[in-house]
């Protein structure tokens, strides 16, 4: 069944009673939050809060149960075989840094090859560049074609001898959905471990980490209706077991002596310090909400809007408007980066903001990709469950107003 956007909008307090309607087209940066998530977090603080995994009193047990319940909920959302494989972090950036510093330092040395792509977010480049500085590893990049998809023509060569492949499931700039299974199979055939930055995919598409056959899989709560301050790393149990801890401290140890320590079991081994408890609770409810909408419906809905947007903008602006990324298809998600009449993205978004349309301008933390696109910055509109074609029309009207304003 198609999404009922008007009903869904009512689930999100931010759309309530505003002077002018909010046209929010920046969910790729961070989604809005439904009331159910906010209420669950408040309820947690008002009724159940105590530190987790420490107290023996009933309240602490209840807090622990809610935190661990959220872990099971997230595990179910991505079809993880075991909740022990679901680690909570601060965000996807921290999850990827965990992989680089824990797996990377334990398994890589000078000259070892890590393969990335040219369409990565900085969160999946900088941790590896840091490792390059620390260990002297070599980085290779899968290039992006002029059609804005990955160029897989030399994939086997690039993967030859590689120890790890890490790539984005969906580009936060181009909307390109990468062929996860194909890349994973090729990497496994080459003996490389596979890491996926799924920050832009998990919020929008039904996810089954077992079917994808990847090894490590990271995403972030605030882009999927959840709160800020919580991210996830899923990994195969045997692999996570073999990895040394990332951050050290309370909560992640079994034993500490003056001359050494023994880490705790999964998942606690990777959760040093007091975790984001209320945020985990919120993320669990975000998964409930997304499943209530239906992930297949969410994806279909976004595909429809994206297709409508590409068509409408092309009809209205023709060659004055550049849409980056591949044509509308099931290989493209609801992220639309635009160039318009040679205007700078900052100026466009300023005028769009004036029309009540929230879009983002900038390099979107993907400077190497901007370089391949030959631009310094782009305007990006992105769609989610509370958007519909009226938002696209508002965007098109605002672009027209922008063109009029600058006298173009």
């Amino acid at each position, binding site marked *: 069944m198609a999404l009922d956007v008007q009903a869904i909008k009512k689930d999100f307090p931010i759309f309530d009673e505003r002077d002018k309607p909010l046209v929010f087209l920046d969910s790729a940066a961070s989604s809005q939050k439904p009331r159910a998530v906010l209420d669950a977090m408040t309820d947690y603080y008002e009724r159940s809060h105590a530190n987790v995994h420490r107290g023996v009193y009933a309240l602490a047990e209840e807090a622990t149960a809610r935190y661990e319940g959220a872990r099971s909920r997230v595990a179910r959302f991505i079809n993880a075989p075991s909740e022990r494989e679901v680690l909570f972090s601060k965000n996807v950036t921290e999850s990827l840094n965990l992989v680089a510093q824990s797996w990377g330092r334990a398994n890589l040395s000078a000259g070892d090859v890590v393969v990335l792509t040219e369409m990565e977010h900085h969160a999946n480049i900088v941790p590896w560049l840091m490792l390059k500085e620390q260990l002297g590893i070599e980085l290779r990049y899968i290039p992006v074609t002029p059609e804005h998809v990955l160029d897989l023509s030399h994939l086997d060569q690039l993967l030859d001898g590689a120890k790890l492949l890490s790539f984005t499931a969906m580009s936060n700039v181009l909307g390109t959905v990468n062929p996860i299974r194909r890349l994973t199979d090729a990497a496994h055939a080459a003996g490389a471990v596979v890491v996926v930055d799924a920050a832009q995919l998990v919020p929008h598409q039904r996810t089954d980490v077992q079917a994808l056959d990847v090894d490590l899989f990271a995403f972030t709560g605030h882009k999927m209706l959840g709160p800020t301050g919580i991210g996830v790393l899923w990994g195969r149990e045997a692999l996570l077991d073999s990895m040394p801890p990332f951050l050290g401290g309370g909560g992640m140890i079994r034993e500490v002596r003056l001359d050494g320590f023994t880490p705790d079991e999964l998942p606690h081994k990777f959760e040093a310090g007091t975790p984001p408890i209320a945020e985990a609770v919120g993320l669990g409810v975000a998964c409930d909400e997304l499943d209530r909408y239906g992930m297949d419906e969410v994806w279909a809905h976004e595909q429809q809007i994206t297709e409508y947007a590409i068509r409408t903008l092309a009809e209205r602006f023709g060659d004055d408007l550049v849409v980056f990324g591949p044509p509308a298809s099931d290989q493209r998600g609801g992220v639309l980066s635009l160039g318009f009449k040679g205007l*700078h993205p900052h100026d466009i978004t*300023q005028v769009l903001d004036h029309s009540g349309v929230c879009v983002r301008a900038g390099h979107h933390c993907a*400077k190497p990709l901007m370089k391949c696109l030959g631009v*310094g910055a782009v305007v990006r509109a992105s769609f989610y469950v509370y958007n519909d074609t009226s938002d696209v029309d508002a965007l098109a009207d605002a672009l027209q*107003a922008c063109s009029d304003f600058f006298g173009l």
Partner: protein
Amino acid sequence: MPGLEDLYREIILDHYRNPRNRGELETPPARRVEGFNPLCGDEIVVYVQVDDDGRIDDIKIGGQGCSISQSSASMMSSAVKGKTVDEARALTRAFKALMTIHESRLDGGDGSGTDTPTPDPEVKLGDLEALQGVVKFPVRIKCATLSWNTLGQGLDEVGTEITP
């Protein structure tokens, strides 16, 4: 669109559409300095040539950016060309005073620390006052000050060469 005209004054749009002093200078004798706005990816290149008397005898601007950063750079280049280094610094202080209260509130300092601007009341900003509307749009202040910070860096570098 009411409100937006405060930001995009006609003179700003004119400098954006017809930027003055665009180009490059030979280095040396000119000095080339790059400035970046990491927030939006704008980059500016300032070529500044100072003669033996400490006068800016030529300046050119390269790089790419939004209308605010580009027009600010264009106006700056017209304003400082032919001025002495000291005069250019006084103008920079006056311009930053127009902007800085807000800039420092945004990031806890203007980044340089050295030239907390105390404007000389004698310094006339002229056309540059058109950029005043930018302060109502705090995220754009960095765009307006980018070229000035870059020029300042260039003049500092020239200065260290002249004074042993």
